[in-house]
């Protein structure tokens, strides 16, 4: 369901503030020595290896293994805050038709996302529950395996990246992804970006794009847009290898499942249903 204009402006305002804060003067062009360490701000985990950069008031976040937990029960029905924030932050276009559709986060029913685990006796309240789906940043990503130019590649911290400069648009990665996480720009996206965020590039036509776990925000010491904007704290992000991180503590305490685990991809988005 599309947000109303009022809802959209509210989310846009909150996200814009969240985006602008780290880029305020003091961090851009400076003569700072890179060896100044800065303490992490409240709410941001100090652990996970903090490393100084001059890109903002906060040092870059580093991890051995970034992961996301989705506490699906906390999602209010009809809420699309995460999608709006993500798409605004990353200049994701809205083409207005399902054929050309590009999205980084989608909302899908449980019986479509977890069709193997769904059975006819599940109540509709569970089957019909909407859960956000995005790139799983797999441990063993098939999309990276098939890319003929290594335009999509896996970082040491687990994030599966897209190099939009190198992508030739062959869409082999889209065929390889078992989760439907990737979108192709079948047209020039620029005219269809509702509100351009100058802090992030757009893409050009002819390349494939997907969620990037907000690696540009992690480099500025802040968590992904979807995580920060979620009022219910349904999205929990962090370093799985850090025992003190929110995501690790959550997964240590509760039952979680992943999408299509039998395929051996090792997805790093965990769902708590």
């Amino acid at each position, binding site marked *: 369901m599309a947000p109303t204009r009022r809802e959209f402006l509210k989310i846009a305002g909150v996200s814009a503030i969240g985006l602008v804060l780290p880029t305020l003067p003091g961090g851009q062009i400076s003569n700072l020595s890179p060896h100044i360490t800065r303490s992490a701000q409240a709410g941001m985990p100090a652990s996970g290896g903090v490393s100084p950069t001059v890109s903002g008031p906060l040092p870059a976040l580093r991890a051995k293994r970034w992961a996301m937990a989705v506490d699906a029960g906390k999602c209010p029905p009809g809420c699309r805050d995460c999608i709006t924030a993500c798409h605004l932050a990353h200049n994701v276009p809205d083409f207005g038709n399902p054929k050309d559709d590009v999205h980084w986060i989608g909302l899908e029913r449980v019986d479509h996302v977890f069709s193997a685990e769904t059975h006819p006796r599940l109540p509709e309240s569970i089957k019909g529950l909407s859960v956000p789906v995005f790139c799983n940043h797999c441990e063993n990503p098939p999309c990276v395996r*098939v890319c003929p130019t290594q335009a999509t590649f896996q970082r040491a911290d687990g994030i599966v990246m897209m190099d939009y400069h190198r992508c*030739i648009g062959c869409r082999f990665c889209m065929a390889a992804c078992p989760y439907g996480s990737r979108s192709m720009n079948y047209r020039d996206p620029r005219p269809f970006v509702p509100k351009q965020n100058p802090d992030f590039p757009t893409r050009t036509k002819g390349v494939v794009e997907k969620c990037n776990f907000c690696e540009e925000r992690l480099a500025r010491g802040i968590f992904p847009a979807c995580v920060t904007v979620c009022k219910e704290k349904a999205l929990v992000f962090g370093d799985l290898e850090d025992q003190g991180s929110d995501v690790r503590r959550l997964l240590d305490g509760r039952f979680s499942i992943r999408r299509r685990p039998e395929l051996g991809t090792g997805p790093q988005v965990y769902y708590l249903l």
Partner: protein
Amino acid sequence: MLEKALKGSRGYGIWVAFLLLLAGIGFFFYLKQLDYGLGITGMSRDVSWGLYIAQFTFLVGIAASAVMLVLPYYLHDHKAFGKITILGEFLAVSAVIMCITFVFVDLGQPGRAINLLLYPSPRSVLFWDVIVLNGYLLLNLVTGWTVLGCDRKGIPPPAWVKPLIYLSIPWAVSIHTVTAFIYAGLPGRGFWLTAIMAPRFLASAFASGPALLILFCLILRRFTRFDAGEKAIQTMAKIVAYALATSIFFVLVELFTAFYSQIPGHVQHLKYLFAGLDGHNTIAHWITVSAFTAVAALVLLILPQTRKREPLLALACCFVFLSLWIEKGLGLVVTGFVPSPLETITDYTPTGPEVAITIGIWALGLLMITMFYKIFVSVRTET
């Protein structure tokens, strides 16, 4: 020898002009595609490969079929094929060029195609496909041209041609296998994740390629003074029959695995392909045509009474070509994407510009075949 393609009868000139016109129209629409993006086609987020890749997949089979002439002649001394191996090699060259062109027009950023060479990725099947396709192109171009040139001069071919021809035999198998591996190694696409994808590709290739060659030989017999010989044509027809039978058998075997095991992941795709899902049944109509023409062709080819009668043989070969063009083209490609990983059914319909570009590339391929065969016929009928 190239000059032989530039002179011909009125009919030849009209045919060439017609193909150039179609190619020109296709090029015009390709420029539109470059401007607008691939959105000008019917491809979508769910069905991200369509008509272009379907043509590529089918044509790889046609290209590999040269081996069905080369192998019996060079390895088993089947003399009847001696006159026509070059026809197979030239068909292979044209088909591979069409394959490469179809992949090229399918790229979202074709200007960056050089990245395939600048950043080699041996773990990607597409990387190997580029290598084997280009290698096969070179092999067949060099061997076909050299042997024909030597024929024209009335001398035996040089010694280095033989090893290259022998190499082209396993290489032909490799272009199929690698293309099948593009599909068969993807964990998320249950319809394609089958070990017999490569054998299926080989079987349908060895049916569709020689079927096309038979049609070409019949056309050459009708319009030129070149006659491939009844023995060669009948042997090719028998090869098509066996390969077609194998191909049909492979499809039935796939149906058994899915429908006897009743695993939904397997069943859904085949149901969509053969019967339609939730009212989406356009592709089911097409595959029905494919099934009927395949069976009809098989009967016509197995029975000597029908196989030996030229009009029925021609009809059977057209049926084989059509049937496999559907089954290994859109039948294979689109079905892999439906239902999507999120259980949605998205229809795919090629758009006008997409069809125009496709026809344009086919015209280009037919133009190359026409010119190659014109050179061949000129050389063969003058010596």
